[in-house]
């Protein structure tokens, strides 16, 4: 891939006097719709976020702060969720495994939107490892080693299951932020993960179905060369600082959404620089993002998760 970059740099040498100018965006769709987002996490209070769609050039907050957001389970109304801030609506009701929830949001001037999903049952991690020293490579003339992660768990044969695996390092950064690092450049993917076809889209989490190994044990092994890191306002898990392997049993809606999200994100083609634009010319065409929200956009999806703390075993020392 570096050689492709090099090629692109060469192309740039030819672009003797390229320049940019502002132009008018024509024919942009002015119709705005409600956007409802809610990830239902087992044993966690339900939090929804309501916003609206906007023109690509819109540069203000898209959050909707005056929505009426209702929480339902089947045909039973549970309660109206309370607005907190930045389009967020909360309830003290905690999502339960096996339960189906519907969220409805309405605001004057918009069509009512709603989305439904069920919380899947969690799976138990049997074992997980974080090692270094088995898979060497050379970077900038130096011998380096990929970081190797593995996770072992059993699949419940009674259900069609979808999973998401995260190999995370989490550390409390300040009083209100958490430093989170996730390996994002996978060099040696597990065949189960590779089958999903997402590795080249540089996901930070790894989703897969049990289609290939229904009811049997999973032993996922992957090697990474680089990570994505940043500070977040919420932790991934409630735990101390350190490395964790997180296993989420995810709903089909979450699986389809996340799959489309990684492809959508990779093909956004947002860059302003000629280098990145030409590089992005090697990506695919824009990809529509999955939504299960009726009359609007966003996602209502669910997962339950378990995690295991891991320690680095460094074979190079």
């Amino acid at each position, binding site marked *: 891939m570096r050689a492709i970059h*090099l*090629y692109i740099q060469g192309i740039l040498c030819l672009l003797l006097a390229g320049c940019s100018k502002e132009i008018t965006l024509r024919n942009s769709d002015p119709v705005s719709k409600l956007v409802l987002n809610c*990830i239902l996490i087992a044993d966690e209070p339900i939090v929804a976020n309501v916003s609206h769609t906007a023109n*690509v*050039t819109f540069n203000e907050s898209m959050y909707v702060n005056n929505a009426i957001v209702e929480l339902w389970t089947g045909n039973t109304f549970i309660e109206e969720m309370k607005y907190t801030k930045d389009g967020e609506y909360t309830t003290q009701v905690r999502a339960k495994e096996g339960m189906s929830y519907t969220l409805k949001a309405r605001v004057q001037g918009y069509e009512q939107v709603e989305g439904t999903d069920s919380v899947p049952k969690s799976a138990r991690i049997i074992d997980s490892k974080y090692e270094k020293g088995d898979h060497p490579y*050379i970077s900038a003339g130096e011998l380096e080693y990929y970081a190797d992660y593995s996770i072992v768990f059993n699949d419940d044969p009674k259900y069609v299951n979808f999973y998401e695996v995260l190999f995370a390092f989490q550390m409390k950064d300040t009083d209100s932020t958490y430093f989170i690092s996730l390996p994002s450049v996978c060099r040696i993917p597990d065949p189960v993960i590779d089958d999903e076809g997402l590795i080249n889209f540089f996901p930070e989490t790894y989703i897969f179905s049990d289609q290939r190994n229904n009811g049997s044990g999973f032993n996922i092994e992957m090697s990474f060369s680089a990570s994505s890191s940043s500070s977040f306002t919420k932790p991934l898990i409630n735990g101390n600082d350190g490395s964790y392997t997180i296993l989420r049993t995810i709903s089909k809606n979450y699986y389809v959404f996340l799959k489309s999200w990684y492809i959508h994100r990779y093909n956004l083609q947002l860059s302003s620089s000629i280098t990145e634009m030409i590089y992005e010319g090697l990506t695919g065409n824009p990809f529509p993002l999955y939504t299960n929200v009726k009359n609007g956009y966003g996602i209502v999806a669910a997962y339950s998760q378990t995690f295991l703390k891991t320690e680095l075993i460094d074979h190079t020392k």
Partner: protein
Amino acid sequence: MMMKLLLLMFSLMVLHSSAQHTISGFVYDSATSERVIGANLYVTELKTGTSTNNYGFYAFNVAKSDSITIMVSFVGYKTEVVRIYIDKNIRREISLSQGIQLKEVTITSVSTSLSKPIISILELPMKQIAYLPKLAGETDIMRVFQLMPGVQMGKEGTSGIYVRGGSPDQNLILLDDIPMYYVNHIGGFISVFNPNAINSATLYKGGFPARYGGRLSSILDIRMKEGNMKEIKGNFSIGILSSKLTLEFPIKKDKTSAIISLRRSIFDLVTRGYFLLLDPESKQSAGYTIYDLNAKINHKISDKDHLYFSFYSGHDRLFSNQRDFDSYDNKFKFNSKRYTQWGNTVFAIRWNHIYNNRLFGNITIGYTRFYYNIIANANKYVTETHEKVGVVNTGFNSTVSDGITKADFDYYPSNKHHVKFGGTLIYHKYNPSSNFSKLIDNNVTLNDTTFNSPTIKAVEMSLYAEDEFTVSDALSMNTGIRFTGFVVDGKKYYSPEPRFTANYAISSNSSLKASYAYMTQPIHLLSNSGVGLPADLWVPATVNIKPESSHQIVLGFLHRLPEKLGLDLTVEAFYKHMADLIDFKEGLSFFSGKGDWQNKVESGGKGEVFGVEVLIEKKEGKITGWLAYSLSRNTRQFANINSGIRYPYVYDHTHDISLVVNQYVNDHITLSAIWVYSTGNAITMPTNKNLVSAMTFYDVGNYIIGSYYSESHIYPGKNNYRMPAYHRLDLSCSFTRHNGKRTKVWSIDIYNAYCRLNPFYLYFDKNKAGDIKLYSFSLFPIIPSFSYSYSF
């Protein structure tokens, strides 16, 4: 039944022909003894005409003991009048002298077209295009074709051609009868065709004769020069992009000649010098090299036999090298090389034989190969001992190669018939992608792997027969059929391809034309982008992916306006329907997604293109040129792309206009101007955005921010948005000095003279006030250039 009819027709033609004498031979350039392709011959007494074939051969049949007058003409040559008394079969060679070429610029031959069943053909006068405005000092035949009606350019500055709504892979580009796959240098900035080595270039965009096949949208038939049979001639030129040297000379006078032409870029010399200038002890270098080598040997074995050997090799290489850089502990040193390269190799051996006065044949054996490589190589040495202890070798490779055998025959049974028949056998070998990785450290092999997409071997064969015949004084036709077969992995695709073109002369100045052609294409191009990168991959039809096919209907009107105006008018309307097209699945590219390329593509796509093209040419006088206008619509439809809804092709240009004007001031100065206008490209543009619950890491300048909410885009449809229209003006002034046999030409060119900022791509960004706005990036605001050419 069909075969019996053909045999009956053939027998009747033979019987008829036995009552006549034949005059045949070659038309030569008197100065070089090169054969003249496409020269027009008109027999005054018989009121019939013909033209020389691709090897300069012609034949007429006349009644016994007849005297005839033949007028022989060709663009750039003085018309020759030859009077011959016929009392037996006669072989007559005709020489043409070069004439007033600077005053003529013509892209079709109306006098021939008025009476012949040909349509949608564009011929480039190679000698004249040197006077058209250049981009960075380079004359490029592909970019001149972009000025023709029905031929569009893709991205600015690129030399790819989109013919009647087709994609670049749908152009069969033949160099001396051998197909070439990727014909661009520097991402399409210039084509691989060095004009100094090219004799003729003919583009068929419709009305395809049966002798051509294998692509849907066009046939570009390029013939290399043969080499001067009489004396040494040469040309040297230098411009901003490259330098060229051409030598043509007799090896044995009037018997054997050769031409060698070399073009080389000068970027790498500049960049190497730049690195040395920065640091005389520099351990690194980088650059970009292109070269084209054309060579041809032309040997006259006898009056009846002629042998040609043609060779082309072209290459792009982007490289960066580092040497003797130290490891962090200074115990080791590393040398590394990285390069991306691609290129073509083509050779052909052709043997012409005149079997008798009415039968001319040519056998071709050839080979073509296109490759694309990305290689990274590093070697590790012990600093003290210089012992090599480590190797890293990784790369990507893609190749396509063909071995080709073909036979083509011209048969002249009577003046009413000109029959062409023949066949082709091609052995294809495709290796769409191969990734390899080798790692040795401290003399231990840690990794040695190769991942290949399966190599695909296929055989393509075709047989054709066509007859250009005169039905009456007004009506003539070319009917033909081509049988094609493509065998891949045990799967066989067969297809009869009927072809038909008719010409009806309304008057001596006007004619109506009509044609139908069915074409198939057993290969596809997987295109990652519209940028024209060589990373686009050639793949064949497979068991699961059918060959592409098209039906094209063309109606034409040709009119020569009154002589005092000196204008010719051509109007053509066309409809083209394409089937079994392929494209990447939404969101996927060759570099993303999983598995073999066949898992990443949508097949069974349809394309529909229709339009009207107008061409007005002024061919003679001090001011020459043409105006070309195309009005067209171009769409695609795939079951699983854009929800199955038909959408505009990226280069769906409603309007395309080209105006070319040449002012012949005097023998020393020629002025030229080009103005082009085109509807903007169709692109997929998000109209709205929204927030979604998705954890992501945003790269903002030099730092990363993390969020559990991410911005996503809403696309109302594929290619829903039009980029701003494209237009520009190019100017050129050429100064010519003749000194005996030596000619010097200085050329000053201005590309995009009024500095139109044509969009290369669009993007969103924040302005100084922090507002998000749409921006257009433009490549070439204005580019003045200079070139110099010396001929002897």
